[in-house]
């Protein structure tokens, strides 16, 4: 049809030209075509990768309980961690954001240990079984001593002990209160790496 008319005639004369032009066309087609088709992906990646530059809300000590709420005998007790939380476009004020276990390390003394209730294996919340007197993860059966160490490190799915958190005892209006630096840590790693 149209093209055959054109090509049939003075072909040889313009062969060099044609070659050049066709090289140019090919290169342009590939480059421009590539750019235009990759562009939306590149732009999209900016948005898709946005979570990588978000900061976690970690940081700072939070009031968890008053000291007299902890049993004197050193049995761990769970407490919700209440603080403000931002989820994308929402801010939630005074919401539970996690759970910690507190226990006195010495009878009657104001020494307190705090453990994040999240199992370092894959993130379920551990239970404290009062009968057996140890922590048990309901998911893959990791178990931990009341102080957070793994009971059988050689066959415990969790790669590390329960995550201890920094504790401060503060006097507030004459009462001793337990404040904890609440953080979450990456699951599944032997090292304790705080979620940034």
């Amino acid at each position: 049809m149209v093209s055959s008319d054109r090509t049939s005639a003075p072909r040889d004369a313009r062969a060099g030209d044609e070659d050049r032009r066709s090289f140019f066309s090919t290169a342009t087609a590939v480059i421009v075509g590539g750019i235009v088709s990759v562009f939306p992906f590149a732009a999209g990646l900016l948005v898709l990768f946005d979570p990588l530059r978000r900061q976690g809300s970690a940081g700072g000590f939070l009031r968890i309980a008053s000291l007299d709420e902890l049993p004197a005998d050193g049995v761990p007790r769970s407490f919700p961690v209440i603080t403000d939380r931002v989820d994308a476009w929402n801010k939630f004020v005074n919401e539970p954001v996690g759970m910690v276990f507190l226990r006195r390390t010495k009878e009657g003394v104001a020494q307190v240990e705090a453990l994040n209730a999240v199992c370092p294996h894959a993130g379920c919340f551990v239970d404290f079984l009062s009968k057996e007197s140890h922590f048990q993860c309901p998911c893959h059966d990791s178990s931990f001593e009341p102080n957070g160490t793994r009971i059988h490190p050689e066959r415990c799915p969790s790669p590390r002990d329960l995550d201890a958190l920094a504790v401060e005892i503060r006097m507030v209006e004459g009462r001793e209160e337990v404040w904890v630096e609440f953080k979450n840590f990456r699951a599944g790693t032997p090292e304790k790496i705080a979620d940034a």
Partner: protein
Amino acid sequence: MRAFFDWLDDRTGYRDLVGAALYEHIPGGARWRYVWGSTLVFAFFMQVVTGFVLWTAYSPSAQTAWESVAYIQYDMQGGWLVRGLHHFMAQAMVVLLALHLMQVVIDGAYRAPREINFWLGLILMQIVLGLALTGYLLPWDQKGFWATRVATNLMGIVPVVGADLQRLVVGGTTYGHHTLTRFFALHAGVLPALLVFFLVLHVALFRRHGIHARDPERKPDHTFWPEQVMRDAVACLAVLLVVLGLVFLPGLGDRPAGAPPGYYLGAELGAPADPASPYSAARPEWYFLFLFQFLKFFHGETEIYGAIVIPGAVMGVLFLMPILGRWRLGHGFNIGFLIVMGIGIGALTVQAMVEDRGDETYLAAVEQAEMNATRVRDLTHAPEGIGAAGALALVRQDPMIQGPLLFNRHCVMCHTHVDENGHGLAGDEAPTASNLYGFATREWIAGLLSPEHIGTAAYFGATPYKQGDMVGWVNDTVPSMSDEEKADLQKVVAALSAEAHLPSQEAIDARDAATIEEGATLLKETVGCADCHRFHDAGELGSAPDLTGYGSYGWLSEFISDPTHERFYREAVDGGMPGFATHRENPLANKLSPEQLDVLVRWLRGEWYRPEFTLASTTGEGAAADPAPPPASDTTSAAPTPEASSEATMPAAAEPAAENPSAPAEPVEEPASPNEPEPGEESPADSPQAEEAPTEDAPAATPPAEEPPAADSQPSEEPTPTPEADSENEPAPSEPVSEEPSATL
């Protein structure tokens, strides 16, 4: 007409297409064993259609996902059906995939020239599993949430990129809105698009190479239409019937009378996801259970083998099958590998199930989860409805769910909350304060005023007040009362109990208005209460707790906040009850936040929403048995690990009973009322009225009011006070409550 089709064919060539599609040649004839691929296409088609419909009603965000799914399930016409089909067809698809894969491998249909098509099939399998995984999260219920949390945490252990990968999938460091928007985009957009793309290639290649006939000489050849199509259609029908069966199966069990079908048919919906509260019933969907179980065998740093390396290697072998199959032994190896894999998966799955079945903590957690799910479903239909804060707020503010948790956390060290049958909440050690079950009900107060009970652990027996004036007065005065005086005392009981305005007693309080008025006068003037207590305009504050509004919402809140206030015990006493909200200016320093105090008080008073529909089975018994089966019942065995998992002890169970309009408590009382109402004294006061009561109450009861409340208001109360003050607060009813007393007055 013919001309039209000719024209159409000329412009589109559709006849060739249709011909190619329908008259595919099948050497050896149509066979049932070829149906698996078609059933998969059918299943996918169902998922697309039902999925689009669900999409029209679904809203992916942490505050709306569960809510919109609940609305689909419980309220929308046919919502439960479409959701049930989508849910169970997804599971059917996994099963069909396995069958299809097995059939292809066993028939050797992966060999040249079909290798690429086999690989395409494996890619399709990954996509389908990805759809299953992402879909599990979308309802944003506890089950899906925790399963997904584990799955995405496993992603984090991939070397180098794991943490970033996890963040990208989760949409940040914490789970929330963007987890849902991303999962939804994957589930409804990216993965289906990929699936269609690969499916087109898969079918095109399949057509190009033709069907892989096992024994082409077996029978005369057929064409696809109609012989194979007929078989495929029948197989699809069978799949559909199985799925429909699963959708309707739950309807065979208990169902709440008169409830909409979404309450008991179709896929289940757990309680809304709560990232901050433990969920010990977390398990993946059954077809991933083997992976879950598999992970238990890998410890510490070897986890990556269980989660990634070995599953990856297995997939790798599957990909190599077409190549291995070129050798004679290879095909045998492939089949053997598949069989071993099947047995392994089956064994792990069974092992996971068996372990769970023997695990009491897990079973209790599942039961709790189901009760919570039912409770939240009911709450979404309460008059308040779901507010902008979402359904989780309903859970967090519901006395029935949270009351026992708070009681376990703050009260159970001293108090109990145990019904006549011994069910309820109690600490590991002997109580040092009263049983608050039924606090401020007539039975409870009658027990307090009875010499047999006041000295027991249920009331003052274990408190610092056991030698107090109140105990002394009851022991000295009551036994020597004349019958007439005892009758008067019953009226006083009714009057004092009426101060609480308990929902459970609304009907009898209204019925006995005259008696209550009389009792109030007796209380002020005759019986002697006002010698120590204040009661409205009689008596003075100062030596014993104020009886004005005794057990009411306001009284209880204030009492729990600060029992040493001058309205109550005035000063702290050794072993007495601490204040739970004494810091008015600095609420953060209080043990109970205002919201927690509100929930606890409402729980103790039995003030919570009673659902419209309850299980028929529950209603009958519960209601009839005792007048005031409070929420407590739920706890039954709750006591175990109260603190450990806060949720463990929830109460949901009890409430159903309450609902029933007709049967409730009152009837029981009736008989009793005339004479021996309370353990001790109640007598005759109103016999006449009592009789009628039943009828009246019933109607009234229907609404929420009826239930007997939890009754115990005293949680906080511990007897702190001065010696004399014993007042009534502390004690609880041991078993005094027998049934009779309750309504009497």
